[in-house]
Each structure stands twice: as structure tokens, then as C-alpha cells.
């Protein structure tokens, strides 16, 4: 499936925005202005942009937590500043400053997050079940890393989705790492998506550094599920060029990861640079257009930060919180 030039420009702009926001988040956490932890996206954000790009507002999505789902959410059209405000513990936060790192945009069918990795899989079964039950035509975008496929609930979810032919995309952002372990030490085989075959679920493997390849895969996967063919598994191969979590170690098993290799990846596999080169070569954008898009993205990131800082820290009383546990 080929992309229109307009689609390519939107994708490119959104990747520039996500990468600028990721850098802003790094500034904010280093300045001690973020609550909780942050998992830098780095050069791994093209799959997230593609995952969100072709969803309708009512299509449920669970973002992968790398860059804390910023790419997925902004690509789906969510106003990201309320999430960043949440991460800065502010009243304007999408969870009223109560969660540190959870997203909550129920109107956009992005319902939340969990610190327990893998919690999303059974929920996505539920989203798909509800879509079929309601005959709503909704499709589910279940994003995760490759490491999360260790959890048994992921396998249960693949089984249930296949059995019930649910309209779900299992979108895997495979950076080859899970915390301080190399996925090749955790999974017997080169591609996590090979799991899908056992459940009769079709799968594809895509270059996660190629924004447009990811987007084409998303279009293809969504067409598959929208036609009622049941679930599909997309594995985007990407890279982690920094530590798992800001301030942590960068090991795989007992050994330090190779800094030169990571530097080389960072240098040669930047998805924004790769996409820019394509757009220039295809004469879709000029260098001035590209510079403008990047400058706009930086400005937006600064504006988001300023918006969050202007919102007061959320400090509800215990009584207020007690009244908020149950709904009336």
C-alpha cells in the first residue's frame, strides 16, 4: 500500500514532533522537574508514529511505553501537553496529577497504562471483544516492546484474539532489548513475531527505522483487521541506543553494551534523517520545508514545557482523594 505525499508529510512532521518532545522530556527529567522515571525513545520512535497514524478517534490504542507513548498519542491526534503535565505532577495532567506516568484519554479510546508490563494484552482482547460485540467497526492497536512477549498473558491474548478473530493489531516495537537483557537471550529465534504462526495469526517484519515502511505496514495491517480477517502481528525492528531507563545501567546480562555500536546506530539509523533524505529525493519537501518542520517541532516542545510549568503542582488532600476512589 503506498502513501500519498500528504500522508508522508504528516508522518514526517509527527516524527519530528515526537523526537523533539522526547528530547524535551530528557531535559525536564535531568532538571529534576519530572515525577517518576523516563524511558528515552531515542531513534526508536518511527513505529509509534506509524501505529497511531491511521486510527480513528474511537479505535482503542495501547501505546508502547518507550518515550512513554508520546509518538503514538500525538500521531493519533491527542493533545500531548496534558500527558506531559501529568508527568510533571501538575493539575492540568490527564490523570489530575495522580499517576506520574499514566496516560488517560478515554474520549480518544486511550484508557490508561500500568507499571506492570504486559498488562495491556488481555485488555486489548477486551477492546476487540467489545468491538465485535457492539459491531462498531473499531480496530485495536496493541503496542508493546519485544520483551513484553515473555509474559504469559501475551500468549493468552494471542490465543483469544485468534480464536475469536478479533480486530486487533499486535504491534511490536522490537529493539532487541528488555531492560538489561538482550532479547536473543530470552527468546529462541530471531523474530518475536514468529509466535504468531502458532496461533494461525499472520505476521510481518518491518524495518522500524524506515518511517514510511512502518506506515505502509500499519495501513496493510489495519486493512487486514478491518476486513474481518482477525488479528495480525507486526514486528518493527528498531534499536535502543541508550540505557533502558534514564540514569540506569546499560548492560546486557553481565556485560556492558558496546558504546561504539550504539554510537554508530545513532549516527546512521536516525529515522528522521532517513525520512528527510527520502522526502528530498522524491522532491516531496525542500530543505527549507524540512528545517521549518524541525524548528516548529522544537518550538512546540518548548511551549508544552511552558504550559506544564504554568500549571500548579497537583496536591489534593487525602479527603479529596478518598472521595475519588469510587464513582458516585
Amino acid at each position, binding site marked *: 500500500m503506498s502513501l500519498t505525499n500528504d500522508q508522508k508529510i504528516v508522518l514526517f512532521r509527527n516524527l519530528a514532533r515526537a523526537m523533539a518532545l522526547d528530547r524535551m522530556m530528557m531535559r525536564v527529567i535531568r532538571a529534576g522537574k519530572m515525577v517518576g522515571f523516563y524511558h528515552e525513545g531515542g531513534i526508536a520512535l518511527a513505529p509509534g508514529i506509524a501505529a497511531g497514524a491511521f486510527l480513528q478517534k474511537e479505535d482503542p490504542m495501547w501505546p508502547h511505553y518507550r518515550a512513554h507513548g508520546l509518538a503514538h498519542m500525538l500521531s493519533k491526534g491527542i493533545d500531548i501537553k496534558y500527558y506531559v503535565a501529568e508527568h510533571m505532577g501538575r493539575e492540568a495532567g490527564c490523570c489530575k496529577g495522580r499517576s*506520574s506516568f499514566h496516560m488517560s484519554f478515554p474520549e480518544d479510546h486511550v484508557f490508561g497504562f500500568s507499571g*506492570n508490563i504486559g498488562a495491556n494484552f488481555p485488555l486489548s482482547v477486551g477492546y476487540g471483544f467489545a468491538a465485535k460485540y457492539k459491531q462498531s467497526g473499531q480496530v485495536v492497536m496493541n503496542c508493546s516492546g519485544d520483551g513484553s512477549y515473555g*509474559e504469559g498473558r501475551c500468549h493468552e491474548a494471542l490465543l483469544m484474539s485468534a480464536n475469536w478473530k478479533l480486530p486487533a493489531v499486535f504491534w511490536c516495537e522490537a529493539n532487541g532489548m528488555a*531492560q538489561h537483557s538482550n532479547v536473543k537471550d530470552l527468546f529462541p529465534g530471531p523474530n518475536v513475531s514468529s509466535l504468531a504462526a502458532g496461533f494461525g495469526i499472520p505476521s510481518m517484519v518491518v524495518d522500524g527505522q524506515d518511517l514510511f515502511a512502518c506506515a505502509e505496514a500499519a495501513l496493510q495491517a489495519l486493512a487486514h483487521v478491518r476486513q474481518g480477517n482477525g488479528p495480525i502481528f507486526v514486528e518493527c525492528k528498531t534499536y535502543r541506543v541508550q540505557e533502558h531507563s534514564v540514569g540506569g545501567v546499560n548492560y546486557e546480562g*553481565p556485560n556492558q553494551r558496546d558504546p561504539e555500536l550504539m554510537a554508530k546506530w545513532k549516527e546512521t539509523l536516525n529515522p528522521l534523517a532517513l525520512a528527510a533524505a527520502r522526502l528530498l529525493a522524491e522532491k516531496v519537501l525542500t530543505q527549507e520545508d524540512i528545517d521549518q518542520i524541525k524548528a516548529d517541532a522544537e518550538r512546540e516542545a518548548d511551549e508544552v514545557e511552558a504550559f506544564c510549568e504554568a500549571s500548579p503542582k497537583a496536591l489534593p488532600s487525602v479527603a479529596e482523594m*478518598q472521595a475519588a476512589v469510587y464513582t458516585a
Partner: protein
Amino acid sequence: MSSQRELTLCEAIREAYVEEMRRDERVFMLGISIQAGTFPHTKNLCEEFGTHRVVDTPLAETGMAGCAMGAAQEGLRPILDFMYAGFSYFAGSEVFLQMGQYHFLHGSQHPLPIVMVGTCGVGRRVGNEHATLPYGMAIHHPGIKTCMPATPYDAKGLMKAAIRDDNPVLFLWHTNLMMHKGYVPEEDYVVPLGVADIKREGSDVTILASGLQVHSALKVAEKLKDEISVEVVDARSFEPFDRESLLRSIEKTTRLVIVDEDFERGGFAAEVSAQVMEHGYDLLDAPVRRVCHPNIPVPGGYIDVYTMPTSERIEEAVREVCR
């Protein structure tokens, strides 16, 4: 021999691991990214014990817990590292319903020596799964022993006791204490499970606390020393629980404040309070007071300073029972 050598709580745990793994080849460790040392208590353990005894697993808490249980049935002595104790909830059936109950239900013929570890505690602004303290859950389920050290000394001694114990032991520590330093002897010693420790003597009121909250209680005791004489009892272990030591303390002080960072409803503090009503009612001159986490999910953001027991809240409770 016992110079005043200081270690962090993590280093003390690590030292217990090293000594016990040298002593007993059946002891091995299982966890996510423990080879790299997600936390310093497993740092460089592979160097001495190799990757076959310090085993990295996929993200698979259910599988890890079941694997530990099966390996224990076959004679090994696993240390199962959940990283954050809240991740153990993915293995709820194995941890709460099976490990502890299997022995009794199968005629008490085949014990399950498993140590489960995890860090936990409120006050890191991450909320919920990374904060929740599962000892209340654990004591509710028969068959699992549960402890939480407040000092590096106790950490090493309790860990040795846990590893040598033939029952499943849930060994927790507070994330804010991981780098807390204190005296740790180089020699082999054990702090038995089920023995509380008086961390400060006093005569007017007893504070029962554990983990990080022992330190909050000690702060209060120091602050009030010219007004109220506070005795701080560190529970150290929740199950078995050393009721006798607590009753002896209350006999002297006649007043009790229980500090418990877990949710207030149905937790350890509630359990102790009921036990004191049943076994020590006549010793009390004032109703027992609890200082706990309110019955709301552990929030993230800046809010957890309000919800965790603080020195201020503890002081208020102490003053109230001493009125």
C-alpha cells in the same frame, strides 16, 4: 573482630547471598535482568557464581514463580527476585495460593524452601505497582513467612535466615533504604525470623514499625525525648510475628501506635491491633492508634508525601495516645 564496617542495605543483602551460595550449591537466583544488576544487591554475582546460578529470565513472573516452586520440589533452593514486589502480583496464584499452602495440603511431607525478594515502598513518586507493599497480602495467606529489614545489619541476618528456612519466605525492603548504610559484621550470623527488635528504649509509649518507618519512628522518638519517652519496636518479621516482645513493651509503656506503610484496611496494623486487644487489653491505658497509608491507591505525582506515614503523622498519633 567486629570492626565498625559499614555497608548499604543492598550490599548487606548481597553479602548474605554470596555467603549462602558459597555454603550451599543448591541455592540459585532467578530474576529479570539480575545478571546486570538492575539493583546493586545482585551486582557482579555472575562473576563468582556464573550465569547458571544467577539466571536471567524473560519478563515472565508467573513462569518464574512456578519455576522456583518446581525447582524447590526437586531439591533446589531458589531465590526468586521480583525486582519490584508489585510485579509479583502477576504470579498471584503461585505466590499466595500455592507456595505457602502446598506443604499443608499435601500432607506436610515436602517443604518448599523458596526466598522471594522485591523492593517496595511509598515515597518515590511512581505510585501503584512500583510502590505497593505486599506483606499485608502475604500474612493473610497461610504458609508464607514475611519480613522486612530496617537496617543493613538486620538485612544480612534476616536474609541468611530466609535462605536457610525450609518454607517460602517473602523478603521485602523499602526502595528508599537500599542505599542506607549501617554496621554489618563480616562474620556469619543469623537474625531469626519472628524476633522483633527494640530499636530504642522508652517508657511512655510504644511505636511498632518496620522498614523505612522504623526510621521515621526513631526521628519522632528523638524529637520528643524531653516530653515523651518513646520505645521503638521494629517488627522485622510480620509472619511469624513476635507478639510476646510487643506485649512486654506495652506492659512497660501501656500505649501503642502502629505504623504501617501498607493500606490501612485489613493490613498488618489491623492484625496486630486485634491481637493486642485479644492478648493485651489489660495492659493498655489508651486505645491503639494506627498510622497507615489511607485506603486509596498509592498515587504518583507529588502527592505521596501526604499519603505515606510521615514523622508528623506519627508524632500526632503519639501525642494523641499520650494525652
